[in-house]
């Protein structure tokens, strides 16, 4: 009997994707920067001034760096969830809504759930867990609809996202829900500030960075999801169900459960992102709380091309860009719209070069 089993071919492929992801990203950013400079020139703002403002806002001070990283965490959590669901060929575009639901749950628990007095950090852990649960349920619904009724999850996660965002709006408008008591006509439509004990503790609090515990939580969750995807039977089922649900069912895998679980985990990560935003950063729930971060997280997940490392890299990039962009708008009077355009260019060049590289990879 003859066997042509060659072992070496598979080993070579392994190291490739991460390196390539990095290459793609740095190349694309360079191009995007160039375009951005041209655009800044075209609105008549001195480039040096605009870039100085950008750099200042992104990494100009310990506080700026901390703020950028804190922002990245939200993108990363949503992106990690996106990558996990994408293993089962499920596209979770509901990050925005899952953030909102997580924010609502965390606010409710922090303010009215009796968490304030809990010992050992449970005061801030319990609201996070509740946010994960709420986001998980919000994600599980489209999973169930997809598995049982064949509803397209892109549509259902997106629509549920709108519902969640408006639910949040309602919560902060209505005194019987989460709005702070109306003491005067000028009371803003937002919740009370959550108690100190429910706020996430700062890491390296003397450094002035302002980075909160969310960093550790995000890193741990990222590693956990990477392990789930690559090393567990559940990760195996995710891929099998994604590629060929019929064959997966015949092989004894539970299609419904796998789909529901995939989107529920993605939703839970979105919920945690909402909790971290609230408890680490904003401390009160306001209208527009999710600020489009869910969609940025979705793009982070897309750009990461199924790699958790890629998610972290892309999330950091987006975090710093957002911070720098905000400052550029405030200090250098570069119009807000321009910041968005530049962001869009980054996304397009990244995605475009990724496709270009992968095509090239096939031929080489």
């Amino acid at each position: 009997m003859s066997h042509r089993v060659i072992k070496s071919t598979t080993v070579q492929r392994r190291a490739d994707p991460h390196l390539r992801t990095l290459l793609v990203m740095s190349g694309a950013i360079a191009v995007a920067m160039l375009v951005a400079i041209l655009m800044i020139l075209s609105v008549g703002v001195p480039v040096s001034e605009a870039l100085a403002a950008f750099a200042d806002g992104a990494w100009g001070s310990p506080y700026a760096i901390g703020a950028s990283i804190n922002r990245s965490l939200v993108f990363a959590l949503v992106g990690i969830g996106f990558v996990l669901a994408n293993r089962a060929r499920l596209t979770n575009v509901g990050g925005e809504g899952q953030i909102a639901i997580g924010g609502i749950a965390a606010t409710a628990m922090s303010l009215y759930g009796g968490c304030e007095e809990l010992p050992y950090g449970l005061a801030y852990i319990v609201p996070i867990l509740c946010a994960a649960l709420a986001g998980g349920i919000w994600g599980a619904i489209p999973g169930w609809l997809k598995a049982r009724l064949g509803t397209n999850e892109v549509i259902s996660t997106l629509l549920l996202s709108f519902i969640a965002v408006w639910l949040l709006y309602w919560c902060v408008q209505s005194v019987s829900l989460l709005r702070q008591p109306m003491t005067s006509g000028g009371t803003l439509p937002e919740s009370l500030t959550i108690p100190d004990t429910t706020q996430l503790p700062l890491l390296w609090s003397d450094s002035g960075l302002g980075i909160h515990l969310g960093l550790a939580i995000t890193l741990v969750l990222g590693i956990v999801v990477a392990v789930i995807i690559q090393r567990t039977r559940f990760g195996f089922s995710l891929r099998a169900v994604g590629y060929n649900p019929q064959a997966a069912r015949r092989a004894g895998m539970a299609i419904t459960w796998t789909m529901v679980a995939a989107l529920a985990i993605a939703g839970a990560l979105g919920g945690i992102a909402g909790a971290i935003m609230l408890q680490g950063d904003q401390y009160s729930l306001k209208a527009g709380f999710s600020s489009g971060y869910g969609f940025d997280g979705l793009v982070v997940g897309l750009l990461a091309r199924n790699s958790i490392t890629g998610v972290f890299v892309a999330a950091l990039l987006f975090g710093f860009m957002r911070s720098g962009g905000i400052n550029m708008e405030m200090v250098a009077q570069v119009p807000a719209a321009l910041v968005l355009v530049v962001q869009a260019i980054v996304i397009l060049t990244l995605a475009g070069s990724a496709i270009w590289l992968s095509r090239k990879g096939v031929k080489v």
Partner: protein
Amino acid sequence: MADHQDMPVPALSLQGIDKFFGAFQALSNITLDLLPGEVHCLLGENGAGKSTLCNVIFGVHQPDSGVMFRAGQPYQPLKPHDALTAGIAMVHQHFSLVDNASVLDNLLLGQSQGWINYGQQQQRIKETLQGLGLNLDLQVKVSALSVGERQRVEIVKCLLRNPSVLILDEPTAVLLPAEISALLSVCARVANQGCAVVLVTHKLAEIQRIASRATVLQNGRVVTASTQPAREIDRLVRAMIDRPGQTNVTAPVVGDPQARRYTLSEEVLQLDGVTVRDALGVTRLDNCTMVVNRGEIVAIAGVEGNGQSELGAVLAGMLPVSDGQIYVAGKEVTGASPQQITRSGVGIVPEDRHAVGCITEMSLTENLLLNHMHHYSRYGFLQRRKMRDRAQALITRFDIRAAGIDVPFGGLSGGNQQKAVLARELTLESLVLLVAAQPTRGLDVGAVAAVYRHIQDARDRGVGILLISSELDEVLAVADRVVVFYRGKIMGTSLCGQHDRTAIGAWMAGQAA
């Protein structure tokens, strides 16, 4: 038939074509001429390189070395579009039709730009159809057509481009006998019109009937060619399955039915009045009552579409029964999930390998262990080393040829894919019953023999086998009992050694004996 005496300019000439996939050489120094007006049969086992060769000609793959000439001009297709422009058309093994669109729209797909003059196009199509003596309803949706009719649409779609080379990749694998006959007539007519027809096939009867020339591939090389294949069938078959260094050639069907021990022992499968009605209320399986014992092969024969697929799906747990009970080794499994059925010791080789039997995007290892995963994980974590060892053992034992244990399953040839599915199902823990539906479909002679060898080994170990097959000759040679289905009903049962072909034929046609 065209006259080849004074060798016309080849419609297509291949010279020294090599093709590598990674370290694996799929084609090696292929030199081949296709002449106008001939039907050129391409033979070979699964994995011999037939499909790769077709894909190189059609521009799907580019050769690593060697040259091609199209009517004397250099021909270097970079994509199928180049091949089509050069007058080379191909009908793939798997159809590429838009189910929801009409036959007419499918035929016009990719052929017209800008405005479509339906009247004019329809006229042109009708003329083509007439020239071939074919009949197709242009307005009906493709989803309403039978497999044979769909294939006719594919062929007409190609012929509308007036190709001078037409490649048919295993076109008869999915057809009923009558449809095969019609297809071969079409091939002959197309060839008569001066087109070079390449027919990839395994079926010797087809070569006998239609081939002007034949070329046999093995391991990516041309091993022999014949200019009068009808007279040299024996030599061609030997060339296909002979392996240098391997003297013991197995015939497609092994074993002497008389010499077999035939023991009636315990029942491993019992169907009791099983009835299936589909969504439209049509009865697909009608009150089937039958038994499979330990250590016997029971075959379900019949013309395709008479309930065999439904029976396979019901036993796999993929289709609920409307009525009746199913017992495996005495335990009821009516309405059980696929997982419960696997746990009760039933191996399933599904009829549609790609849709149900495997996940082509995943690796060979992962496919080999697809339904055993609970043995290869601890606390939910995969045990990679254990998986690798197991896969390696199965690959050796079942002689699966692949470029590595982690190659994508879709890259394996049909025969090796089927061997892998068999390997997985036959090595289930506490296997008592194997349901094999069309296990040899689309496989070459060598792979067919291997499949039956494994099935018979399992039978000899005491596993009950339910073989669902439309290949009557194979069925008669291997089965201990043959049960004939007609419109979902059991028409009759024929015992080994007492097979009466006339009676079986009558049952298959729906006449009670």
